[in-house]
């Protein structure tokens, strides 16, 4: 079974091309539902929303358009990597993961629409991460600079995480970290990491311990890679959350009479570093 049936890079680019064609409304209207979300209800999903310009000046800003194109190049690479990961996930663990594009859906820059109720609904729909973006001009004194605010919401973390870590991350690109290479400031390695955190949280909740701890482990690697472009308190918090929930998941597996997997081999472990 192909893990991302019917969704091609080209289809995803259709959503991204809202930038290019400037057809996306600039104001963030009420969050519309995603028409494709109900297809294949048993699949885990990565939801990609539209990206929007924050203002008319932003829409007409050449530097911002250039930043958008650079980010799109990076995004395309991340998407291909995510597709490859999803394919492998399905082959190795028979876990289908789909990419769902939601044309016209534009959360606000800070993702205020992601209430607990919406997070529960999306989590029930097996959405592991939802991504959106806003393009804006940053003004400091008399200088202006283009920036993109990319939002990542992890509904399972918001629904089940009990506030242990931020479930919504809004990252500003270019990053301002001390990356060894300037290239890293405009890379987006976070997408896969966030998707894996959401997937792991969902799987842990469903007592799919092997899948959960594998996802958390790979998410940890992704977060560490993401930190190369600039560490933030949110990423640090997410890393601590991932380590902690991986530990508690293993502990649950050890004592679950219905589980007969290899996590039973492990000695008891105190789950330190709880957020």
């Amino acid at each position: 079974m192909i893990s991302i049936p019917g969704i091609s890079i080209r289809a995803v680019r259709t959503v991204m091309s809202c930038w290019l064609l400037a057809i996306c409304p600039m104001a963030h209207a009420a969050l519309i539902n995603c028409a494709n979300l109900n297809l294949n209800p048993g699949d885990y999903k990565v939801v990609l929303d539209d990206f929007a310009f924050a203002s008319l000046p932003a829409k007409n800003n050449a530097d911002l358009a250039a930043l958008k194109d650079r980010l799109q190049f990076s995004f395309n690479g991340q998407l291909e990597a995510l597709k490859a990961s999803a394919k492998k996930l399905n082959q190795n663990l028979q876990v289908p993961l789909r990419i769902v594009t939601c044309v016209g859906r534009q959360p606000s820059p800070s993702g205020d629409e992601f209430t607990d109720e919406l997070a529960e609904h999306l989590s029930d729909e097996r959405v592991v991460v939802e991504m959106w973006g806003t393009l804006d001009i940053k003004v400091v004194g008399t200088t202006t600079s283009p920036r993109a605010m990319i939002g990542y919401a992890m509904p399972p973390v918001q629904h089940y995480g009990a506030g242990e870590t931020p479930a919504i991350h809004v990252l500003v690109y270019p990053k301002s970290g001390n990356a060894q290479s300037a290239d890293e400031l405009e890379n987006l390695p976070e997408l896969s990491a966030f998707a894996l955190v959401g997937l792991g949280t969902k799987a842990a909740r469903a007592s799919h311990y092997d899948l959960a701890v594998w996802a958390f482990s790979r998410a940890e690697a992704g977060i560490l890679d993401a930190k190369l472009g600039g560490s933030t308190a949110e990423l640090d918090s997410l890393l601590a959350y991932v380590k902690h929930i991986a530990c508690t998941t293993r502990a649950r597996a050890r004592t679950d009479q219905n589980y007969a997997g290899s996590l039973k081999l492990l000695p008891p472990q105190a789950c330190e570093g709880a957020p």
Partner: protein
Amino acid sequence: MNCSSVSRPVLRVTAATALCFVFARAWCGEMSPCDNPMVLPGPKVQVFILPYRAESKLTPPGRQLATIMQRHVLFAALKYPSIAIEELTAGSARCEFERVEQQVVPRLSPGQVAIFLWGRLFEQGDAIRLQSTVAVRSKGVTDTLSWGLSGSAATKLSATVPTDPVTFAARTIPLWFLGTLESAQSEARRLHRTPDSNSIYWELPQSDEARFGFEVVETKDDWMHIRLLPSRQDGWVPAHALATGSELKGAFPELYFVDGLIGYHQLLVNSTSPASRRRILDGTLASFDQYVQLSAGRAESDARALAAVLKGNAKLRGQANRQPNEPWSRDALVEAQRDYSDAQKLSPTSTTASGFYLACTSALCNRGECPEGADRLHARFLEAVARDPANRELLDNLNVFYGAVERGDLHLALEEKPIAAQRAILERATNQTQREPVEKGSAK
């Protein structure tokens, strides 16, 4: 000499290359589009360079970069003894790896390896971005190393190099940088009459869209006598012309990775002389070292860890005078273990890195070379299981480890659980249905 008299379409579609002269002369010079790539019967390693996909409009210098990249791979690879290289042409449809792979892999012979290189390009302003991906395929054979315990074939641990494509972080270089490469490029374009840099030479066309086929008819020291296809014009080129063009490889460390990867698979060719193997091994290790060093700080930890793993594997496979099925020497194991340990540091959550480290360390412990003690090794096994509990190879290796403990070949001072109980858990774990499809709706 006027190579430009060769029509551009012919140049673009001609890509059969390198050292196929012994095995399949008839193939050389034939067209090699993506939808019908050539697979030569002789060379053990075949490199397929797919056209890089432009995701923006490219200026002539931008288009030139892809050609320069590919030519670096080409020349670096030509120094190996059993290799073919094809620069594929896209034709009307997009040249996707999956499509080429499906065409190539079924036609590989046992022992042959195909290496695919492809990527994306994006140019904006005075800079160009490039992201490369590389994958290795063979026909029905995995790249697996085994380590025997107690000299018994039944008690082997194994570790397998994953077949996942390796994607490198995108690189950005300023367009002006291309000018600094001109010297090396010029040298590589010169076909000398004799293997002497002072001899008369003629030059390949500089067109950034030119694609060539090469046939290596003989080698002498560091020089290759190559014949251009299909024109049959020939000359001598120094193999190091682009291989030492470190400027570009510094900007694109993945070129070192690819070079190391080709050398790594060349080590599987048994027909080479000890001196040749030594040279290939040294080059392979140096290339992987360069890649790891130059990619520091980049978001590609798994690729960096894989490079370290392949270094360790190369040291084992490059071991001189070793007969097939003969145990690895103690020194080779120690050397390899160091690389596997480095791989774990580069990517602490990588099961590949830990798998090779654990298997190699188990073999060393079995020989009494176990400064950390078998208990620490056991703990490392469990740490790996804690990260990837469904990894069958890891679980099988742990079972072999427990078997060695039960036989008294390894000694655990602190047994928190009876080994028999652990093995029973392992057996249930490997037989359980955890890998069945996740029950739909159960996660709510």
